[in-house]
């Protein structure tokens, strides 16, 4: 696991650079085991930075989420770089964003965190309910160590590990300026068994399954907003004139929304799983995204967010592209 002192030392160096205006990392949350994003602009603020298995957020989202107000007349825009801490999965969001030319490589400074896995906070809070006092989580070998109300607790890694980590192919960031620790070798692989299981169902079964999930959707758009690949400046969902997608909430509109979103992520979703993590009504959105991911890998031998210099899948065309699935 990343040494916290080393992390802060490197962060301090980076934020002291004249060409860096902000560093995005993690700091302890407001209660329990939670961690939250930290936005550091001065060397003093680096003292609160951490990286632990509770640092679940994909901070790559903030690179494109930042709101830029028009620069007042007579002032120059701040073109200094943004530094960001990323785990392996998160780094793929940066790669994909750059592959799509969302920004140039020299716009960001990437502090890569070789990652041995993060927790699923729901599992942690189910295991240790009502722990309000701030507690630390660390990973030692195959066990998570937690401080629960001052006492040390050990839990086998697989019991609290986030599902996405159980099939992580890229624990070490694929893009970085500096790695904060030794590289982590691949410790899992993806056999798509969950997707295969869903594929076996009949159309009727699939419809009944998704209808139930989508009927719960409240269209808070947290799935869109947290998604590092949803960075359109002017999202079609926010358009009022013409209104492409109705604001009214019912199973039909909700279904249209989720299918449209899944299609927009085909060949682009990098499997950070943030959409599913944040959904307040527990819609298993990654099942949709992973179906597309599997299809794209099988049909075109392409994995989004793995090579900065690659062409985005949907921006390329080869004469011998597979098309036998087209009706």
């Amino acid at each position, binding site marked *: 696991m990343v040494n916290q002192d080393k992390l802060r030392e490197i962060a301090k160096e980076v934020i002291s650079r004249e060409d860096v205006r902000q560093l995005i990392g993690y700091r302890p949350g407001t*209660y329990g085991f939670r961690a939250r994003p930290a*936005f550091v602009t001065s060397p003093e603020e680096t003292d609160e930075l951490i990286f632990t298995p509770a640092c679940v957020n994909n901070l790559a*989202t903030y690179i494109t*989420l930042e709101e830029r107000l028009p620069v007042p007349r007579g002032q120059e825009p701040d073109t200094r770089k943004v530094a960001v801490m990323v785990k392996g999965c998160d780094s793929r969001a940066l790669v994909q964003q750059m592959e799509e030319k969302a920004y140039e490589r020299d716009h960001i400074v990437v502090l890569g965190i070789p990652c041995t896995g993060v927790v699923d906070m729901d599992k942690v809070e189910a295991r240790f309910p009502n722990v309000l006092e701030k507690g630390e989580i660390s990973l030692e070998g195959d066990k998570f160590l937690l401080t629960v109300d001052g006492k040390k607790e050990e839990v086998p890694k697989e019991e609290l590990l986030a599902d996405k980590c159980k099939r992580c192919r890229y624990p070490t960031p694929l893009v970085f300026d500096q790695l904060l620790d030794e590289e982590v070798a691949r410790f899992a692989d993806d056999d798509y068994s969950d997707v295969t299981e869903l594929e076996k169902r009949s159309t009727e079964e699939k419809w009944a399954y998704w209808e139930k999930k989508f009927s719960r959707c409240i269209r808070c758009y947290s799935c869109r*907003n947290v998604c590092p690949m949803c960075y359109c400046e002017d999202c079609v969902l926010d358009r009022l004139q013409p209104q492409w997608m109705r*604001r009214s909430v019912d199973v039909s509109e909700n279904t249209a929304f989720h299918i449209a979103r899944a299609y927009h992520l085909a060949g682009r979703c990098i499997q950070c799983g*943030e959409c599913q*993590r944040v959904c*307040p009504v527990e819609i298993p959105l990654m099942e949709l995204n992973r179906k597309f991911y599997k299809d794209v890998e099988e049909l075109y031998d392409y994995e989004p967010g793995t090579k900065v210099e690659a062409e985005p899948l949907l921006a390329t065309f080869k004469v011998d592209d597979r098309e036998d699935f087209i009706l």
Partner: protein
Amino acid sequence: MAVKKLSKDKVADALKELSKFRLIAPAKSDEVVVFSEITDPEEVCLDYGNSTVPPKKVVFPQTETLFRFVVGNPELEEKNVEEEGTTVIFGLRPCDARAMAIVDKLFSWDYEDPYYLKRRQLTTVVGMACVEPPSMNCFCTSVGGSPFGKEGLDLLLTDMGDYFAVQALTEKGEKLQETLSSHLEEAPADDEKKVEEMEAASKGKIKRSIDTQGIPEKLPGLWDNELWKKVSASCLGCGICTFLCPTCHCFDIQDEVESGEGRRARMWDSCMFSEYTVHASGHNPRPTRRERTRNRISHKYSYYPKRFEVIACVGCGRCINLCPVNIDILDILSQVVDA
């Protein structure tokens, strides 16, 4: 009316009795507790903490048709809320009932909202006391509520182990208690005292708090304070905190037209959305999440108390529990206090 006793083995019968009305109660959709229209009492799940989406949606639906129209035809087919019939919300938490009482003030203020008020009139609210605080982020006692609070409720149920103590609080509640009379028994004489003790015990288990004294008066002076930039830096601008808030009541009205026919509908809106205050000119007076976050907090803790003498937050903790980036309203408020 005295406290009655509803034995747990009679709950199903009581719910069956109530299903002659439009019955809304907590039910599981997968593992998510949702207030749903009940057709089979078996679906009801009373062993729950609190629902993810507050029951405000029963009286203030997320999407509701106001009227239907045919383009070119001046005749409107208006929504008749009466048709929804008598409704019973069963088993909601006192904070969510209190939230309805708070929102009532707005919907009956300078304009009397006929849809909301009619629905409120048709609805009987049966609460279930929080013998244990449902969440570690509950803070109802800081904002004038209680885990056994009665405001906004017509009937209060308290889980006494093998039965519920049933206490009618209003005329509507008495009427409903009457409807259920064949399922109710006399409660032990010391129940009222027991309930008081349980309330004190539950209050003692609420761990989070804030002293709200002075916050409403202080907020307007913090308009340009640096704290808003700090607390909103990580905000994603999603609608979780507002849509899941039992007192948030902003709505938008939109026309939906297709093939010459359509409807005018109103639907929940969120001050955290980027297009919330966009003017027709394209100008947005709240251009970033900094202004939007300031508005969310100020509306609850300053504008609303100024107008209606009550804080528009009931301390249910949903916005804290479910914020994807751990933005914590108590953390913000303590920064307001310290500012």
